[in-house]
């Protein structure tokens, strides 16, 4: 055999082996990258859901505070009991706003007149691209008109593709104006030839919720038959308190914020619940349950439900009775007893916070509440059956069998829903029967995900269009993007760890009777999961969160390595500091409710009272009283503290980061 050919053979064999090796290494690094990307998104999502669950627990408390702090006959106040919105309703129309609110000549933003035209919509888009604000008077007029139009609409809108070539369906926007503008750029503005359905969650989290609402409502008024809105779970004033929309409105509209929020609360409750296309495609925000009854949903009075976070009175009373008998099973950090809230309600009724008489609109029945809660909060899952949605605390998980049954009952072909973050902007499940569409790109972090929208043609075949808003003109490598998502996710996780330090330390101690300061990885993972209540891959994350001792065990102290809670006063007990840190955002909401004149100050007495109520509501007991701490915060010794400063003090400091920054 020729020597030359065997040399060539050997060389090509070598090349092949080399190529395989390099390809293998490459695929290994890509796999690791993919793992890091997925667990980062997992961290974001589980922290988000755990937080949502906390909100459900706290919503009772928020509502109690709201009722207690705003006198019922004060129309100009933000949230009084439901009855007052009626007064706003009858007393105000666009003419009233015209008369009462003056728009100065110095205002160069868009000026609206009704009925709106396409020119107005274009002016709004142009203004918002240039970060201008729409004047409060126009906002109020717009909301007024929108409410009138929405009131005429049924709970479930029926559309037909015979009137337009394709219908575009968009999912959660969450205040991301850039995404909405990008969608309009790629897909055209709404018009008679371009029909849109927006499937809820227009507000919260992003910083342009107000602008999105204005644009959507404006187009709704101009093209009421071609722009359709479904209510999402975030079109809810209690959630808005926590997730940023209320704050955004108060900041942007200092003088009229309260009125705007009041009107918004009504407008949200008038948003339709679902849309059906050609009697075959059902579009709603969350999902369904095994008891979903579309006919019942279509017939109920949807505006009765201002917020889904508050079960109807009859259920609340029943819950109180039940909970007083059953001892709490969850850890005390999650409020388990409603005793305090019950007591609080009795207190509030004696102070007559709720007006009596015909001004109070009817409460929803438990069935009505549950039906709407289910369609706004549920998530699809691959397992058959319908189980309570534990992650979110509301709605349920529904399986392919539930979908199939609903389709059979109502002769449907497709369910389009949103509500869940998806890295690609959309996801198909239940054998093609359910589509999740999510339109907020970069939702958790720059680079975290794409957004998408659906184009539905007359044959009802969906086509997906993906996009991603990018601040950077340079194309960042996948490595860089994953790196930044991962570091943000880990930062959030570490903050949670720091805020639960005391609990974690005692959980670790249970596995370490000799006090060596080291426990097995297994025990460490179990402790982390049980205290933080986050379903995360702890063993995979361990290397990022804690160090190993030479004998392969986890060094407990290293978990808290570079973290500490900034504290204004050194003598504060760690447990107290942690509670303040953990509930900073919620306390901020509560203090803002108390602070009627938006001065940023709260009296020491009120602070103390509120704190006491809050902690007993949560079932937390602090051996140390807050008085010493609070007194130290009273810099002027005038009996008032600046609560923003106070809360700002209790944030988690990443010491290494501090060193790096300095």
């Amino acid at each position, binding site marked *: 055999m020729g020597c030359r050919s065997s040399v060539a053979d050997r060389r090509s064999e*070598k*090349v*092949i*082996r*080399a*190529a*395989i*090796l*390099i*390809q*293998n*290494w*490459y*695929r*290994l*690094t*890509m*796999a*690791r*990258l*993919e*793992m890091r990307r*997925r*667990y980062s998104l*997992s961290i974001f999502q589980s922290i988000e859901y755990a937080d949502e669950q906390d909100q459900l627990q706290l919503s009772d408390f928020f509502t109690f505070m709201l009722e207690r702090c705003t006198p019922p006959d004060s129309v100009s106040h933000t949230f009084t009991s439901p009855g007052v919105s009626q007064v706003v309703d009858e007393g105000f129309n666009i003419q009233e706003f015209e008369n009462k609110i003056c728009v100065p000549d110095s205002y160069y933003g868009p000026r609206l007149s009704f009925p709106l035209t396409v020119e107005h919509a274009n002016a709004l888009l142009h203004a918002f691209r240039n970060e201008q604000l729409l004047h409060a008077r126009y906002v109020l007029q717009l909301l007024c008109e929108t409410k009138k139009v929405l009131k005429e609409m049924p709970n479930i809108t029926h559309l037909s593709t015979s009137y337009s070539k394709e219908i575009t369906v968009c999912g959660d926007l969450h205040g991301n104006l850039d995404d909405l503008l990008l969608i309009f750029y790629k897909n055209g503005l709404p018009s008679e030839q371009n029909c849109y359905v927006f499937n809820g969650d227009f507000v919260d989290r992003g910083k342009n919720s107000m602008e999105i609402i204005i644009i959507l409502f404006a187009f709704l008024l101009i093209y009421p038959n071609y722009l359709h809105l479904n209510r999402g779970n975030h079109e809810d004033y209690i959630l808005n308190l926590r997730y940023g929309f209320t704050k955004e409105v108060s900041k942007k509209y200092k003088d009229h914020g309260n009125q705007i929020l009041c009107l918004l609360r009504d407008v949200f409750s008038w948003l339709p619940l679902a849309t059906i296309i050609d009697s075959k495609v059902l579009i709603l925000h969350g999902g369904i349950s095994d008891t979903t009854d579309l006919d019942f949903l279509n017939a109920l009075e949807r505006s009765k439900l201002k917020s889904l976070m508050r079960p109807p009175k009859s259920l609340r009373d029943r819950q109180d009775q039940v909970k007083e008998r059953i001892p709490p099973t969850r850890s005390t950090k999650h409020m388990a007893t409603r005793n305090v809230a019950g007591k609080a309600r009795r207190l509030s009724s004696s102070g007559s916070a709720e007006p009596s008489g015909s001004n109070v609109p009817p409460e929803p029945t438990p069935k009505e509440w549950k039906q709407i809660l289910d369609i706004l909060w549920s998530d699809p*899952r*691959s*397992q058959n059956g319908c189980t309570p949605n534990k992650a979110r605390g509301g709605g349920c998980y529904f399986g392919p069998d539930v979908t199939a049954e609903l389709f059979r009952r109502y002769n449907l072909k497709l369910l389009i829903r949103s509500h869940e973050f998806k890295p690609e902007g959309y*996801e198909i*499940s239940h054998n093609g029967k359910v589509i999740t569409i999510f339109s907020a790109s970069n939702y958790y972090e720059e680079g975290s995900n794409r957004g998408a929208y659906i184009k539905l043609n007359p044959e009802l075949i969906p086509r997906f269009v993906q996009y991603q808003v990018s601040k950077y003109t340079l*194309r960042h*490598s*996948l*490595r860089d993007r994953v790196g930044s998502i991962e570091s943000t996710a880990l930062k959030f996780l570490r903050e949670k760890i720091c805020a639960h330090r005391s609990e974690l330390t005692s959980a670790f101690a249970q596995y370490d009777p000799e006090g060596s300061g080291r426990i097995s*990885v*297994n025990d460490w*993972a179990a402790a982390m999961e049980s205290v933080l209540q986050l379903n995360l*891959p*702890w*063993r*995979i994350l361990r290397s990022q969160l804690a160090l190993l001792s030479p004998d392969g065990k986890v060094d407990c102290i290293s978990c808290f390595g570079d973290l500490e809670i900034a504290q204004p006063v050194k003598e504060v007990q760690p447990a107290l500091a942690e509670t303040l840190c953990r509930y900073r955002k919620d306390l901020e909401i509560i203090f803002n409710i108390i602070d009627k004149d938006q001065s940023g100050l709260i009296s020491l007495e009120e602070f103390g009272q509120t704190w006491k109520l809050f902690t007993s509501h949560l079932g937390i007991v602090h051996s140390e009283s807050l008085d010493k701490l609070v007194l130290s915060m009273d810099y002027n010794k005038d009996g008032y503290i600046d609560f923003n400063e106070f809360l700002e003090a209790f944030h988690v400091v990443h010491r290494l980061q501090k060193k790096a920054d300095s």
Partner: protein
Amino acid sequence: MENNHSTVVVFPDGAVAEIEKKIIEAFEVFDQGGDKTVSIRDIGSIVRSLGCFPTEAELHELLANIEKEEPTGYIHLEKFLPVMTKVLLDRSYRPIPEDVLLHAFEALDENKCGYITKEELVKYMTGEGEPFTEEEMEDMLSTALDPETNTLHYRDYILKLIVE
């Protein structure tokens, strides 16, 4: 060299349970629907992120071991766990050390100049061995090439790969 000799290896108590927990964790990261199944396309990522280094061919073999019946496109944890546990216990598919990787690049660098041109890289990676998909090739090019000279300086690149 012992072969056909059945060796009994004894593992300390709990070691197998530990390994199983690791595998389940990694699996669940890719389990979107929460129903203990993952797409077949993700098995490679799961196996590799557990520290193993199989070639594509070895991966196919592994999959054949897992899913003996008609492939549905999904792998269930029940089937994956025992096979993967054995892989980790047997320490199969161990990573090749970095110096071997260096030799691999050198084998492709005929002229021994310390770099490979873009054209050569594309030729080898998409034409030989277990070829890259278009996506894989594009991604490697975007991170590995020196944008000014359009060449891959493999010593530097190896350092990058290893750090991760």
